[in-house]
């Protein structure tokens, strides 16, 4: 009886592992439509932001399309992958700050958490406050962190969902200069 169960288990296990492997293989090799869409260079949706730490209101309109590409990143203090990619951001910022503007926009609903976060980490890149509902609706943000590359004219060149390693981030940022 036990032998029969083990055999059935074994066959099903092999099938499922094979299936998952096949799915993973085909899925990661598929065409990336999000990237293709971004390539169409649509204008970046305008949202309202607040400066950190002063909380002065500013529109994204005033910050993009000024002749410099922009790296827009949506994150939150409670999001481990967001926080995890920040050391890379911090390391790359000095190299890019003269040729690109960074807008690292937190969607935290408890804005004091961002203050506490920066007090602890003291990152060099510019942080902004964004409203999570507005950002989600305008940019269709489904998950964070989401990185958006905007060209010097204010159009979206590239979008990446999920955290990035240092090399991937560098390649992503370099995309603005091709």
């Amino acid at each position, binding site marked *: 009886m036990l032998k029969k169960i083990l055999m059935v288990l074994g066959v099903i296990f092999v099938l499922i592992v094979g299936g998952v492997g096949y799915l993973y293989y085909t899925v990661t090799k598929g065409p990336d439509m999000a990237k293709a869409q971004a390539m169409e260079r649509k204008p970046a949706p305008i949202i309202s932001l607040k400066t950190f730490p002063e909380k002065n209101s500013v529109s994204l309109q005033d910050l993009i399309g000024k002749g410099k590409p922009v790296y827009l990143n949506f994150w939150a203090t409670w999001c481990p992958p967001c926080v995890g990619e920040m050391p890379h951001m911090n390391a790359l910022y000095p190299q890019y700050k003269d040729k690109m503007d960074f807008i690292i926009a937190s969607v935290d609903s408890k804005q004091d958490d961002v203050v506490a976060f920066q007090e602890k980490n003291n990152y060099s890149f510019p942080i902004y406050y964004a409203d*999570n509902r507005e950002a989600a609706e305008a940019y269709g*943000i489904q*998950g964070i962190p989401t990185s958006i590359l905007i060209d010097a004219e204010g159009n979206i060149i590239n979008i990446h969902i999920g955290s990035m390693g240092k090399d991937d981030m560098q390649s992503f940022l370099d995309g603005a200069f091709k």
Partner: protein
Amino acid sequence: MRKLLVLLALGCTAYGVYTGGVATVLQKATFICLECIGIG
């Protein structure tokens, strides 16, 4: 005993709502937990 616990439960929930607990849950539930779905 059960009545006391129910009061505690209601009190906790009410206090949690008062201190922004619902907003906290809402902000997290309305973004895809990328880690949770295996992306990170």
